């Protein structure tokens, strides 16, 4: 078997991966940096982010306010040291991206323009029309093209992390085009594989978001953190799950129930005003808005459709001119995928799984508890998102912690010897496993799609917007059963060349692991906080649960959960308040 070696290996070519690659290459141009990605980097899901990226930019704003919004938005589950580093570095990273050519929207005088976003006290979200993620990813990708030391392995699928001596020393990957399985060793590996929305049936996430990195890390021995916190976005198009960006509400869109009533006023989110008010009504945080939807549904005030109940997002009063100027992609998506023109019609929307707050547990530099293993981006949980991520914090997170992980990994790699020979045996075993379990096996009876659908239904029923012990236990049982049936999965495709069915099977395996972890963490957290709402424990419990869940997998596949205290620096836990005047709170609650 062929072995390739690099100093630093990135798994994932999205926003976080590319930023980390550039950071590593810039620390030391002599390092050999490799980016392994299962899709061409510019296809990564960062490309679909619409609304924008938060970073304090204007004199009337402050880092403390950004930090407070993030922390209170996260229901005090954020590690505050991480948040402080984050808000401080986010503007610099966004500026760096500007220097690389990102076409940010501008003020008439040529300075960066910022917009309001849900849960944010001030306007601080940088945007490039409503294709922010697209522009960021392409800017990053095009910028990496100029760095010679960066080698790309495009369309390589990582199946396993190589671990020796408790240190991660590389990966095994399939070159999808040829089917060749090979080991790529490295002194440090950074996981940037993105989220896991596809574990759920209805999601804004792309087909490639299967939680691969989370499962890879967990199987290698690293713990996952806060997996119970799954964000639902309140406005997804029914059927496709395509996201209508929060910017639509930031520009002044209304949420209406079946009676045309702005129902959010019934859920402690302030009083309706004709124009948007920060942290109020439609600009409340995502968890609250999604929960309000479920309550409306229970009251019978939603509109039933073929694809489940919906409410309406009303943009009509904004006018064609504003919609075309500020929300062109929203209009394009509605017209192209829902056959609806938001200028004249109401947009049907429903909550949709959008983002994973949890992930591979890392410190403030992206380092996991395992030597040589780093993580950044949605796959990681540094803990700046806590129990609920604020819109537009995730793109800058990819940049800030991508860069930090890149730097840290480069430093670590400098002090390491090249990987030793024992990983070779592991790699050969992995090749055998892949061949015996999938490629050469003809006895499998279970279809991938069937298992996947069952898994998705199970997790939605058991660990959706609202959870309770009984439903979670049932889901746990069912996923266990699916894990067993998965052993018996059979492929139609036994070819080597571009075998996407093999990839789907491996992804399903990863997703089952992730689903298990989500359920396990949700079961043990007997409180309600942010995106984790237990009907049997409706209150937040800081006494017991102001702590991160850590879920580990032992070699026999069983999971165990323990807790790690949340780091509090300046902002003691308080009550999350939304509605008028709530943004003043940020200035009062800081203690030194």
């Amino acid at each position, binding site marked *: 078997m062929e072995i390739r070696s690099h100093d630093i290996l990135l798994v994932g070519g999205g926003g976080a991966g590319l930023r980390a690659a550039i950071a590593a290459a810039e620390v030391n141009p002599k390092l050999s940096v490799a980016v392994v990605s299962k899709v061409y980097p510019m296809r990564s899901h960062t490309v679909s982010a619409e609304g924008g990226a938060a970073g304090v930019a204007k004199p009337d704003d402050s880092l403390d306010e950004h930090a407070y919004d993030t922390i209170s938005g996260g229901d005090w589950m954020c590690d505050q040291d991480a948040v402080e580093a984050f808000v401080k570095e986010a503007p610099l990273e966004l500026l760096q991206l500007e220097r690389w050519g990102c076409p940010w929207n501008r003020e008439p005088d040529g300075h960066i323009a910022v917009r309001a976003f849900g849960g944010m006290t001030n306007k601080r979200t940088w945007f490039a029309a409503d294709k922010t993620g697209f522009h960021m990813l392409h800017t990053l990708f095009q910028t990496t093209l100029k760095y010679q030391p960066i080698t*790309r*392995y495009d369309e390589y699928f990582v199946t396993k992390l190589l671990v020796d001596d408790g240190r991660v020393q590389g990966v095994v990957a399939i*070159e999808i085009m*040829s*089917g*060749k399985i090979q080991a790529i060793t490295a002194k440090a590996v950074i996981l940037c594989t993105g989220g896991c929305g596809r574990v759920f049936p209805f999601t804004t996430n792309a087909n490639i978001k299967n939680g691969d990195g989370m499962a890879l890390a967990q199987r290698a021995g690293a713990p996952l953190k806060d997996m119970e916190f799954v964000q639902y976005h309140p406005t997804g198009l029914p059927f496709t799950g395509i996201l209508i960006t929060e910017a639509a509400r930031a520009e002044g869109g209304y949420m209406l129930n079946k009676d045309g009533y702005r129902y959010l006023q019934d859920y402690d989110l302030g009083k309706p005003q004709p124009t948007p008010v920060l942290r109020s009504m439609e600009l409340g945080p995502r968890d609250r808005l999604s929960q309000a939807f479920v309550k409306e549904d229970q009251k019978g005030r939603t509109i039933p459709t073929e694809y489940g109940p919906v409410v309406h997002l009303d943009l009509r009063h904004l006018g064609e001119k504003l919609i075309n100027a500020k929300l062109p992609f929203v209009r394009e998506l509605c017209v192209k995928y829902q056959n609806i023109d938001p200028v004249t019609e109401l947009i049907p929307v429903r909550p949709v799984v959008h983002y994973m707050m949890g992930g591979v547990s890392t410190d403030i530099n992206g380092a996991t508890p395992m030597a040589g293993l780093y993580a950044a981006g949605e796959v990681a949980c540094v803990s700046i998102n806590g129990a609920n991520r604020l819109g537009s914090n995730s793109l800058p997170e990819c940049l800030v912690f991508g860069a930090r992980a890149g730097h840290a990994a480069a430093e670590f790699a400098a002090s390491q010897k090249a990987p030793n020979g024992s990983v070779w045996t592991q790699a050969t075993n992995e090749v055998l496993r892949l061949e015996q379990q999938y490629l050469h096996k003809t006895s499998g009876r279970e279809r991938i799609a069937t298992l996947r659908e069952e898994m998705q239904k199970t997790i939605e029923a058991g660990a959706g917007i609202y959870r309770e012990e009984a439903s979670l236990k049932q889901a746990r049982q069912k996923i266990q059963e699916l894990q067993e049936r998965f052993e018996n999965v059979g492929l139609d495709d036994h070819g*080597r*060349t*571009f075998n996407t069915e093999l990839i789907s099977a491996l992804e399903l395996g990863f997703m089952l692991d992730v689903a298990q972890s989500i359920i396990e963490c949700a079961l043990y957290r007997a409180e309600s906080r942010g995106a984790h709402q237990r009907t049997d424990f409706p209150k937040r419990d800081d006494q017991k649960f102001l702590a991160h869940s850590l879920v580990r997998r032992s070699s026999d596949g069983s999971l165990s959960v323990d807790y790690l205290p949340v780091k509090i620096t300046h902002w003691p836990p308080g009550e999350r308040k939304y509605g008028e005047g709530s943004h003043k709170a940020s200035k009062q609650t800081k203690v030194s």
Partner: protein
Amino acid sequence: MTEMSELNQAAHTEFHPRWYRKRLSTWWWLGEWHYLVFILRELSSLSVAWFVGLTLFQLRAFMRGPDSYGRFTDTLQSPIMIALNLIAFCFIMLHAITWFNLAPRAMPVRVGGKRVPEFLVAAPNYVLWIAVSAFVAWLLLRTS
């Protein structure tokens, strides 16, 4: 990344899949309406050459005196010349129209930072065209 030549092998070997490449047929431009229009547009250049050739002969005839010029205009009246000139004229019109319509693409005009719609940029071309044509016709038809 693997070099393309390495992969594009005649036979399939494991891990070096052979790629299927289709050669473009010589008649590629017949297969699709848009391509055909394109080729016709390009072939309009033959009509341009034809017209210039004709003009050179006309000049030569003119230079040699009224009789020679008369014989030339008689030739132009033959059905075959009429047919050829009709075809040439159609092609020239195709050229003129596509040219005027495509020009704004190559030279976008901006007023106050906003791009002027293409038909507005094309419009002056047409105005100029009509004016020049009218002037030429007037010159030629003036006293006869």
